[in-house]
């Protein structure tokens, strides 16, 4: 990548924000997904609504929340319900358009591991576990993943499937009767991967300056590429200004690298 006036985190957030649609009901965690949603709201998706697994609907935070249960999410929100209710009435009921997911490993079919490196019963590295992600990955209409493009993060097969992408392929997910549409895009600092007709994640877009070779070198499986690889629009001055000046002026997430 060429020297740029934006960093990898900003690039991912801005490209993720562009995937969101006006009116989307987004099940969102804190950190960079929160920034992507807020950026979308201030640009092309003013009616996007944020729903937090803590049970907060239509939050209007006055500050950047550190935790998913920050009190600033509650004061001035449209509605607050219990955790059981937000998972039942919103997520399981099919009322969520978009979910954001993350994890230590993402495989060729968008399955995610956020549970354990090594054997489950004898963990080499024990990770936090599912939280909400098992159900978000299953039941949101569309899921997006933001993660730096690194080989160890993209193994051909995850050690543990915390949440379902397309399993071993679209047909298997469909046979399982899982409601949502599965992962629609993995946004990295190099480009964007999207599922092909079999559910395999293939390279469909590159950010300005990034190459297919770079992407392949940082992916743990033989990365297929779309017939026509799109080059993403570079972040605009407006997008960067909103992110840096309005949303994260202290650079808590933007400087942290995601």
């Amino acid at each position: 990548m060429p020297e740029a006036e934006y960093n990898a985190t900003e690039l991912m957030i801005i490209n993720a924000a562009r995937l969101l649609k006006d009116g989307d009901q987004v099940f969102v965690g804190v950190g960079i997904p929160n920034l992507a949603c807020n950026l979308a709201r201030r640009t092309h998706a003013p009616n996007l609504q944020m729903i937090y697994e803590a049970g907060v609907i239509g939050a209007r935070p006055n500050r950047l929340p550190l935790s998913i249960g920050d009190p600033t999410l509650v004061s001035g929100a449209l509605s607050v319900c219990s955790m059981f209710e937000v998972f039942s009435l919103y997520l399981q009921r099919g009322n969520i358009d978009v979910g954001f997911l993350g994890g230590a490993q993402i495989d060729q079919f968008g399955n995610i591991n956020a549970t354990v490196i090594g054997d489950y019963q004898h963990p080499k590295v024990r990770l936090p576990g599912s939280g909400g992600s098992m159900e978000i990955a299953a039941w949101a209409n569309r899921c997006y993943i933001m993660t730096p493009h690194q080989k160890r993060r993209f193994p051909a097969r995850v050690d543990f499937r915390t949440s379902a992408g397309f399993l071993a392929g679209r047909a298997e997910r469909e046979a399982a009767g899982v409601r949502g549409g599965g992962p629609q895009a993995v946004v990295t600092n190099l480009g964007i991967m999207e599922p092909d007709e079999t559910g395999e994640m293939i390279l469909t877009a590159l950010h300005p300056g990034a190459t297919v070779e770079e992407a392949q070198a940082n992916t743990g499986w033989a990365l297929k590429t779309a017939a026509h690889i799109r080059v993403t629009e570079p972040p605009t001055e407006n997008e960067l200004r909103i992110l840096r000046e309005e949303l994260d002026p202290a650079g808590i997430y933007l400087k942290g690298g995601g």
Partner: protein
Amino acid sequence: MSKLTSLSEAIHQHVHNGDLVYAAGFTHLIPFAAGHEIIRQGIKELVLARATPDLIYDQMVAAGCARKVIFSYSGNPGVGSLKWLRDGMQNGSLEWEEYSHFGMISRLQAGASGLPFMPMRQTGALDLERANPLYQRVQDPYGGEDVVVVPALHPDVAIVHVQRADSEGNAHIWGILGEQREAAFAAKRVILTAEEIVDAELIRSDPNRTLIPSLVVSAVCQVPWCAHPSYTQGYYDRDNDFYLGWEEMSKDEAGVKAYLDEWVYGVRDREEYLAKLGPNTQERLKPGLRLSAPVNYGSY
């Protein structure tokens, strides 16, 4: 009949070695004062259940109170991991039983509802279902896909912090509700801690706000700042500095020992903890006023 007692007495009476404890609260209302009192009383072999173990269970595990944890997200939210839980699971010294958030709270919902189990739709992610034999499947008699089920959870004791309650234990809660109510109805015994004990007439002025009724409450304790470094909506903010600092503090045994010695063993109760916390911290965490608009119930 008043159920008011000290937190120390309530813990002594209702939490026993080997109990399954559910100290409720999703980020909000986490009853740190009760966890510290359990540590001080040296209660052992506990099974600690919480969707998010949070720092409170990391401290209790570090202090040697726990035999096992039941959880769905074992991290320091927004910061990193919980070292003592993580190490315990990695080195085999701590048993665990794991769910997704929805699986975990569905166990409480079943328990609270008097049902043997709760159904959930399939998620396609089978590894945890395979790893935890308490996940089961049930056929849909109406011809749809099988559903995933989890069994009812009935904690021996739930500890639930609320904003205000009357002396019998009828409690108003607002802000993030987490699994407060489900834990209270599911448990065999309930210790209710409250920022304020108020007149029953104030509770009766807004019955729709009463999420926990006296009926299920065993003991009521007035414990201001019970949740610090977690928070109580409208009373004090989350002490994010502490959450960020725990990462460093909990890194080794010496760090944790220093913390426990100073803030748990070194104080007699939450009142002393609060005095030690000092007016500056309290001031820093005080939110401004933002009142709900009233509703008219009408006199009939």
